[in-house]
């Protein structure tokens, strides 16, 4: 069915019972570090036909064909798992891979609209991106994305794209933000992360500031990061960077260079204790302005 005002999809996803065998020969693009039993949680393989295969140890299989438009994705749900489990992979590593293959810069970041300026909260897993975004959402700022933020480079400014209708929180963050546990529902039965809903932004928002999140047991502090240092830090936090080929990385360098020339980067140290969360949010709101 055609919907007026909507363009054709960029990505088509089909859930299928099994995948066609990869065209040989197959080359390994990436694998997660081996576990004690010698297996890897994820292996990413490129087949001779140009299709990329995500092979998860739990049995999830995803084949991504980025050769045409729309990008065509075939996915097999692992035995005993649900569509929600599959979606976790699709909107994480697979979406990140597709964006980067299409030359779109994506960062390991959550984004919040602070009075018309997007604040990008950047950091590794566990650095508090989602918790901070949720804390700002509780203070009336709409969120744009969680964990993965795609950026578009326009003639006038760089924008953070919209993604997802919820934030994903660990139970400790639920307790920190809501005062107790057991209020939020799990995203999938097999995963501890919880669904935090709040008002999401409706349009992409121009970037206001980039924030590299760090922890400390002391007070909230922030410092402006020099552009070259910011670029190197952002490269470490670019999404799916482990899948990039050298030519992809050359594109990334150009994009990151433009990003740090246009938008200021701050390193913000936040307390582990929740008592200073209000101060922390206040500081972040000031940076976005």
């Amino acid at each position, binding site marked *: 069915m055609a919907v007026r005002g909507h363009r054709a999809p960029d990505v088509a996803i089909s859930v299928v019972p099994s995948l066609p065998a990869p065209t040989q020969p197959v080359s390994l693009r990436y694998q997660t570090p081996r576990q004690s039993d010698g297996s890897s949680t994820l292996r990413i393989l490129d087949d001779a036909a140009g299709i990329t295969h995500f092979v998860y140890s739990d049995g999830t299989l995803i084949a991504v064909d980025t050769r045409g438009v729309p990008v065509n994705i075939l996915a097999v749900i692992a035995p005993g798992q649900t569509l929600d489990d599959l979606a976790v992979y699709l909107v994480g590593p697979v979406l990140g891979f597709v964006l980067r293959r299409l030359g779109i810069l994506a960062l390991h970041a959550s984004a919040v609209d602070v009075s018309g300026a997007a604040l990008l909260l950047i950091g590794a897993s566990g650095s508090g991106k989602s918790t901070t975004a949720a804390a700002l959402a509780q203070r009336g700022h709409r969120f744009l994305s969680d964990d993965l933020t795609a950026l578009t480079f326009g003639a006038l400014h760089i924008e953070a794209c919209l993604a997802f209708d919820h934030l994903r929180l660990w139970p400790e963050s639920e307790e920190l933000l809501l005062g107790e546990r057991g209020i939020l529902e799990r995203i999938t039965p097999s995963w501890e992360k919880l669904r935090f809903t709040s008002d999401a932004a409706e349009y992409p928002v121009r970037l206001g500031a980039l924030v590299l999140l760090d922890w400390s047991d002391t007070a909230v502090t922030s410092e402006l990061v*020099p*552009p*070259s*240092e*910011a*670029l*190197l830090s952002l*490269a470490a936090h670019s999404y799916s960077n482990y899948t*990039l080929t*050298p030519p992809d*990385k*050359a594109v990334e*360098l*150009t994009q990151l*260079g433009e990003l*740090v*020339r246009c938008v200021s980067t701050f390193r913000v140290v936040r307390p582990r204790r929740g008592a200073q969360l209000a101060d922390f949010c206040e500081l972040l709101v000031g940076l976005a302005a």
Partner: protein
Amino acid sequence: MPWTTETIVVASDDQVSTVVGGDVVILGMRDGIYYGLNQVGVRIWELVRSPRRIDDLITLLTSEFDIDAASCERDTIALLGDLAERGLVHEARGSG
């Protein structure tokens, strides 16, 4: 053979770089790793974008920065050696 002041060096084709905030960030295409240079390193990088004898580099650097020739020679050769190890510069044979 170790490089001397008579060696001619040039930036490799296996890299891309960009200038941000007065510093240079270089991406080695061989290893996919980013490297940062600042201050005198930025000027050295700028100069070796085309083939240069190391003693020419030292003459230019000592005229532009507050640094003595001996320290400049030692530090420049050391930096160029580091860059060469990472495939970012190499000796320009037959260029001089």
